[in-house]
């Protein structure tokens, strides 16, 4: 089963790095990219991604606020918030928003573990 993933980060370099990992993990997945929260909301509304990777630290609305909004409009979307600030507060808020916390820089291994779980969740929800 192939899914659609939304990558949100104001750094194109960071998006390129995620794409590179996806090339070896799930090369057949469709990818959407957004550089800020507004673009992400529009992409989520128009293209209905199954998974979203959100950078925490972005100008405008941050990744946690965005996670809350995306999950509200589509509760089945599997969301991760990626941040280099591994503060307990951020980890807790991510969990409260129903999102997974991932440490930055995001390794291919960590992304692989998260996406494997995501695939399991999605296949349960969409048999």
């Amino acid at each position, binding site marked *: 089963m192939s899914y659609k993933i939304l990558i949100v980060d*104001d*750094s*194109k*370099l*960071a998006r*390129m*790095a995620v794409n*590179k990992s996806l090339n070896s993990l799930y090369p057949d997945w469709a990818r959407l990219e957004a550089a800020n929260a507004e673009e992400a909301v529009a992409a989520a509304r128009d293209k209905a991604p199954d998974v979203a990777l959100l950078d925490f*630290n*972005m*100008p405008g609305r941050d990744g946690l606020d965005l996670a809350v909004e995306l999950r509200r409009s589509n509760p089945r979307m599997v969301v991760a918030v990626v941040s*280099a*600030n591994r503060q307990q507060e951020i980890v807790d808020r991510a969990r409260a928003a129903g999102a997974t916390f991932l440490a*930055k*820089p995001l390794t291919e291994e960590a992304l692989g573990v998260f996406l494997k779980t995501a695939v399991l969740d999605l296949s349960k929800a969409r048999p």
Partner: protein
Amino acid sequence: VRGRGVNEFIEQFVLESRELVEQATADLLALEKTPGDASRLDSAFRAFHTLKGGAGIVEFAAMERTVHGAEDVLSEVRSGKRAITTQVVGNCLACLDMVVRWLDGIERSGELPQDADAGAAAVAARFAQPAAAGAHGLTAAARGVLEFQVALVNESTPRGSAGRLASAGVVAANVLRSAGRSSDADRVLRAMQSSLDAGAPAGLRAAIEEVLGGGSSMAAPAPQSAFEVEPERKARTLRVDAARVDALVDLTAELTVAKNSIGHAATLIDKDQPHLGDMLRARHAVLHRLVGELQHAVRGMRVLPLEHVFQRFPRLVREMAAELGKPANLVIEGGDTQADKAIVENLFEPLVHVMRNAIDHGIESAATRAALHKPAAATIRLAASRQGEHVVVEVSDDGQGIDVDRVRELALERGLVAEEVLRAMSDEAVIDIIFEPGFSTAETVTGLSGRGVGMDAVRAAVGRLAGQVGVESRAGGGTTIRFTLPFSMMMTPVMVVGSGGQAYGIPLDAVVETLRIGADKVSPIGTSQVVVVRDRTIPLIDLSKALDPTQAEGQEPEVTLVITRIEGHYGALRVDRVGERMEVMMRPLEGILAGIRGLAGSTLLGDGSVLLILDLGTLLE
């Protein structure tokens, strides 16, 4: 991220990092003015954070560590644990400056720097310093200025070295005095005087180095100097937009087809085709156009935006202004203007000189500005624009302008211009004297009105880039120094002249006219010669004798002259014959020809022979 596609990542990393440095610099400078601006603080923090993230992605550990240090400090400021002080801003800017140097290095080599640890340690040491002055009671910025003076003194150019010594000595003394170390300042001034008397820089250098802490600045981990002038380095690789390479490939293909069709036309000669001439001419026109486009495309591969060099000035100006006690704001315009890579990479040093002069001499003291109802903080504008085939870079201040009467006085005092000549000179011509090597001296820099510090060095540096320096002064309203540089370093229109059986190229923009006149119009003055052309007395150089003194004097009744004009000075060059004009790609001289006085470069002609291009500036001196 290693392996395939690494280049793409490095390119994006450099691109993004430069933007982030710019953002962070603007935020930090704004924060210094309004420390309570939370949105600026957030933005600066985010920029450092993203810089760190990028360094992590490309696995540039030294930069990741360095930027992390600054991010931590800003994080403490955000949480209220620490105030945003001048020192915090200075340290964060120093960190960004280090990042810019690394980015420059990456762009030159295409690889992450191997020797980044020393720089990282230097920045880390700054952050580790206690909140007061650093080692030896001098701030890092003051040390930076002093180290820059040592570098200045070390520059081994014989011409105008007195001015440089004096300038370095006075600046060093001012820095020390403002740091409350008057006795050291006096000692430096005494050393400067004896260095000037001896005509040797060693004494002054030793005195400044002693203040810096005995050892030379090589002693690790010396903080990286704020004003350090990097040695000129040639890029080994170029980062080139893929679309530009594609355009080049397409053009080459077209060129090949055009060339083949000319080959075909040539075979028709045998068949005695009547339209052959027309056909060849038409094909030649096509070829001509394509070659032109090809050159244009190749030029496009060598351009960089000037922001690469402008980017370092917000911090430099901030620190120079602080050291000299003259508040100044820097306004940068046209950083996206593109210029030849060689120009962008060699513009830093002359711009530092000009900037320092603007702050040191151009801007009035705070008290004088207040009395004149000028804003307390001066405005310095660093602007670039493209004007036709030229790139113009300007540094303007809103200071007092150049005191023309004082320049006249000094020019006379120093014997740079004869009194009657000086009387006839326009104010504009007088102001141009500041670029003369002998103009900058101790009195000039210690006196108030001079502005000549190292301006001869500026003109020389810009001249090496085939550019010219001009100055515009508005009494009481400020000074503008303008560099007019070629957009491309590649094509130079030249006129070919023959002399002593050899052909030479003369840069066409220096040629006023060519003429033949009777040999009796040439009159000897001492060991040199002059010629009167259109009521103007012009010094004459016999080209064959200038390049080879063993050549015999010509005895013809008529002589062929090329009249030239460089920076307002006329000169006449005696040659055997005047040939065609052409555009050539000038290359620096190599091997046995390198360093020969009077030669600027060489170019390969269509027949495989080498055409030497004359350097009229040194030839007619």
